[in-house]
């Protein structure tokens, strides 16, 4: 009798503990599901935040119409022949990296108009151009950079291109520039064309820069 009572007690305790173990497992499983939901919600909110931080879009590049430069503009060909930059006669050559072309207009040592063409050197792609350019600005010589607009699938003379309009502040002298920067893929070579002016002078020189980009040609 005593042994039976003892067995019953042990059996009861075993049942309670086993039930507790099962309940704990189920509860934990649903609990981890619950923590998974906020996790995925957090992931969604990160995506939304990233989407929210995207630039205004193509509006900043609605002016783009590929076409020939004005008749009185000059032309310079990138060494290697991969691209042709057209620029107004008021600009003159500027010092730049070997293998690139730079034309500009300065006053009292201040660069007011800057055009540059550089062959593709790094990881530039048509689809990743906006990310690349703004990232490169802050990696290189800007303390801050802001993407004001971006567009892909633009038809340049000779090939497709992706462009950004952005503004940045240089690390040295904290100069604030606004630029159009495009990555354009030609049949034989890809290149980057940059057209920049101090942000405060955009109203004055912006249309000239746009015209230079419109007339940019790749081969």
């Amino acid at each position, binding site marked *: 009798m005593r*042994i039976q009572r003892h*067995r019953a007690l*042990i*059996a009861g*305790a*075993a049942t309670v*503990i*086993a039930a*507790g*173990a*099962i309940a*704990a*497992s189920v509860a*934990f*499983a649903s*609990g*981890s599901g619950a*923590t998974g939901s906020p*996790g995925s919600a*957090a*992931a969604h909110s*990160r*995506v939304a935040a990233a989407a929210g931080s995207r630039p205004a879009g193509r509006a900043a590049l609605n002016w783009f119409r590929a076409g020939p430069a004005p008749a009185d503009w000059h032309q310079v060909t990138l060494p290697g022949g991969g691209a042709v930059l057209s620029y107004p006669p008021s600009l003159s050559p*500027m*010092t*730049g*990296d*070997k*293998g*690139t072309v*730079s034309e500009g207009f300065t006053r009292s040592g201040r*660069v007011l108009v*800057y055009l*540059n*063409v*550089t062959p*593709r*050197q*790094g*990881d*530039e792609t048509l689809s990743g151009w906006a990310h*690349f350019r703004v*990232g*490169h600005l802050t*990696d*290189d*010589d800007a303390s801050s950079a802001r993407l004001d607009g971006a567009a892909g699938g633009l038809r340049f003379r000779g090939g497709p291109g992706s462009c950004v309009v952005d503004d*940045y502040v*240089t690390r*040295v*002298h*904290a*100069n604030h*520039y606004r*630029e159009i*920067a495009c990555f354009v893929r030609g049949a034989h070579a890809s290149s*980057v064309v*940059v057209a*920049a*002016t101090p942000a405060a002078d955009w109203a004055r020189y912006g249309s000239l820069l746009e015209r230079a980009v419109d007339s940019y040609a790749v081969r």
Partner: protein
Amino acid sequence: MTSRRLIAILFGAVIALVTACGGGSSSAPASHPSSSPPHSSSSASTGAAAKQKSSGGIPQNGGGDHDSDNNGGPSDGDGNI
């Protein structure tokens, strides 16, 4: 003999309870990385790009070419730092 069996069941149940809790806690961190890879992968690719940028290519200011972009002038179109 039967009593020993019951004790074995009891012991097994305790082990099951401990395992259930321990296993759960090890799966919790696993759910965190599943939401973070997009972040880490993009930063990794940026780092890789930065590494690539710093090697080779057209010489920059450090190479003595005197271009404007590291002297407060507009940035050129180079893909290297």
